[in-house]
């Protein structure tokens, strides 16, 4: 296969995955959002739907061949294009939005340069994702026999949204896939930029500054390549936004969109599954409070189906779940002894006081904490977001706190920074609330604070 054909095929794969998300988001009423959110959401929930599609194919015995994977989504988009398409006025691209788009574009290009310079060949990116992507893609299915008996199984028990989506590239051309599959990481980064820009809309100068502060940070840039954590962070930001929509009421299809995002989070990483379980509470509360039992039940059923999908596949494959087993039967004495060390480590990562610390962690939390305190006093939604933030941090303190004592230092070195990165979803959303309270145009129509 020539390089041009390999790259063209990869682009078709990514386009189909994105279109799958775009189609679902539109079908669930997400086209009310601004374009940035729609772009981000499409790049996030598309791979979630693809994961469900591929598990379905495995159950039905359909081979993982690119035409079979791509055509259903292209067909759906084609069939519904004219019906769903809404004529919207062209976006009003003012100077703040142009500035924000320029910064995010430069950052994306820098990350893409890093990503495509080095193919997937080593470390976590192979042991957590690409090895399984190659199994799925080169054996044209989930190959349960091979998957359960890999010589060096890596983290075969992890949810495999990333691997199943990257498998399209390995199914297309296994030779170039270690390079082309990098695109999935760059698209995760774009998704984060999209959903964050959407959270800060309308884009004023204040919103531009807040968005850059939130997403162009050292932890985001340094974890964009080789991991799924930036994608998970983006999913959490979208989850928080949609949860606010659901609780606000008035949007009949918002619960289904939230269910789709919860399912996507659960299929991305184990941490996503844990947070999605909490997110189901939002659906439950909204269903009871708004007395929309049919819609609520449908959304809860959709979320439960996606949440249970990977645990069911894992059980079917007979894969052990050491982390989940340990979390469900926690050694409380170990937790009591180690929790404070985890809290101290998180505090060190979140609130650096020296240059190496700032270069690793950035200064989002230094800015976000005072603003969160200020915003929470005035805004009920911000209080809920702050509660979610504390609960999320508490969950991670628990997860690391029950680790084997000998493993804790290694986990601090390898995982703690990325766990803290996931939790930045909540300060980002609180910052968005603060901007909407303090940075938005004032009631008399004048633009506040010099915002243009």
């Amino acid at each position: 296969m020539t390089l041009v054909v390999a790259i063209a095929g990869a682009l078709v794969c990514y386009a189909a995955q994105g279109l799958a998300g775009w189609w679902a988001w539109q079908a669930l009423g997400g086209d009310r959002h601004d374009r940035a959110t729609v772009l981000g959401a499409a790049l996030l929930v598309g791979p979630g739907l693809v994961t469900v599609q591929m598990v379905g194919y495995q159950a039905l015995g359909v081979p993982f061949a690119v035409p079979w994977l791509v055509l259903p989504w292209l067909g759906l988009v084609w069939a519904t294009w004219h019906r769903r398409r809404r004529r919207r006025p062209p976006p009003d691209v003012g100077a703040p939005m142009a500035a924000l788009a320029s910064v995010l574009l430069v950052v994306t290009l820098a990350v893409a340069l890093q990503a495509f310079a080095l193919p997937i060949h080593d470390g976590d990116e192979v042991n957590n994702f690409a090895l399984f992507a190659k199994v799925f893609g080169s054996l044209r299915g989930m190959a349960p026999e091979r998957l359960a008996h890999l010589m060096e199984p890596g983290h075969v028990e992890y949810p495999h949204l990333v691997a199943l989506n990257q498998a399209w590239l390995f199914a297309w051309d296994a030779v170039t896939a270690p390079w082309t599959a990098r695109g999935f990481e760059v698209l995760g980064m774009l998704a984060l930029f999209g959903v964050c820009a959407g959270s800060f809309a309308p884009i004023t100068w204040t919103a531009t500054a807040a968005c850059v502060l939130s997403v162009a940070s050292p932890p985001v840039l340094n974890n964009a390549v080789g991991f799924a954590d930036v994608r998970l962070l983006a999913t959490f930001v979208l989850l928080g936004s949609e949860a606010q929509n659901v609780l606000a009421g008035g949007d009949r299809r918002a619960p289904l969109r939230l269910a789709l995002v919860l399912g996507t989070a659960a299929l991305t990483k184990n941490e996503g599954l844990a947070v999605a379980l909490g997110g189901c509470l939002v659906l439950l509360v909204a269903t009871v409070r708004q007395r929309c039992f049919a819609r609520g039940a449908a959304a809860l059923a959709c979320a439960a189906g996606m949440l249970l999908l990977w645990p069911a596949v894992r059980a079917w494959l007979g894969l052990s779940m050491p982390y989940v087993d340990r979390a469900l039967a926690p050694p409380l004495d170990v937790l009591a002894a180690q929790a404070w060390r985890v809290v101290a480590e998180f505090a060190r990562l979140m609130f650096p006081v020296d240059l190496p610390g700032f270069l690793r962690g950035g200064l989002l939390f230094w800015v976000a904490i005072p603003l969160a305190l200020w915003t929470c006093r005035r805004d009920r939604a911000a209080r809920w977001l702050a509660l979610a933030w504390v609960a999320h941090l508490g969950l991670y303190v628990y997860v690391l706190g029950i680790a084997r004592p000998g493993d804790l230092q290694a986990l601090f070195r390898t995982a703690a920074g990325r766990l803290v990165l996931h939790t930045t979803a909540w300060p980002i959303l609180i910052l968005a609330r603060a901007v909407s309270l303090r940075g938005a145009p004032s009631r008399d129509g004048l633009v506040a604070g010099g915002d243009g």
Partner: protein
Amino acid sequence: MSLLPPSRRAFAVGLGVAAVAQLALAGTSFWPALARAPQDWRWMTAPVPPEPPTEGMRAFRAMPEVLRGVPDDAPVLVVSGLAAVQFEYYVLPRPMRLLQALPQAWIDLARQHVPELVDEIVRRRERLDERGLLLTRARLRDAVGLVRFVVVAGPEPVELAAVRARLEPVRSLLGFALYAVGP
């Protein structure tokens, strides 16, 4: 408690300064990875590259070339030392068996030079042995009887001598050698 009701202008200016500082920090922190990119690209793509610095990079350059022409259904045995390489990533879709060398002599050596790692290495050896992946003469003899090709990664282990007569060299590159198994 009156917590920080900043004026809109102070709020915007403060966020702007923080954003610029954040961008500078991110750029500084990300620059080493970005500056490495051209060299990484050369290591992975140049027709005659300087030898890549890591075992993983060498495996990426060498394994597809070493395995060229090996049929997709041919079972392959990989014999390696304590490599940090995920060999199955390269051998797939072919069936693969793995044997890793970790002789007692290496543990004795580690005890003299890196005693803090001895426990980890001993545990690793036990795990390999439990899973039948620890290289022994008997396991090697049995495994060679079940495969059509053998890849030796790194220096040849002494255990290979017992089956050497059955192995016909095919090609080798960057420390990875392919042998066809004869009768």
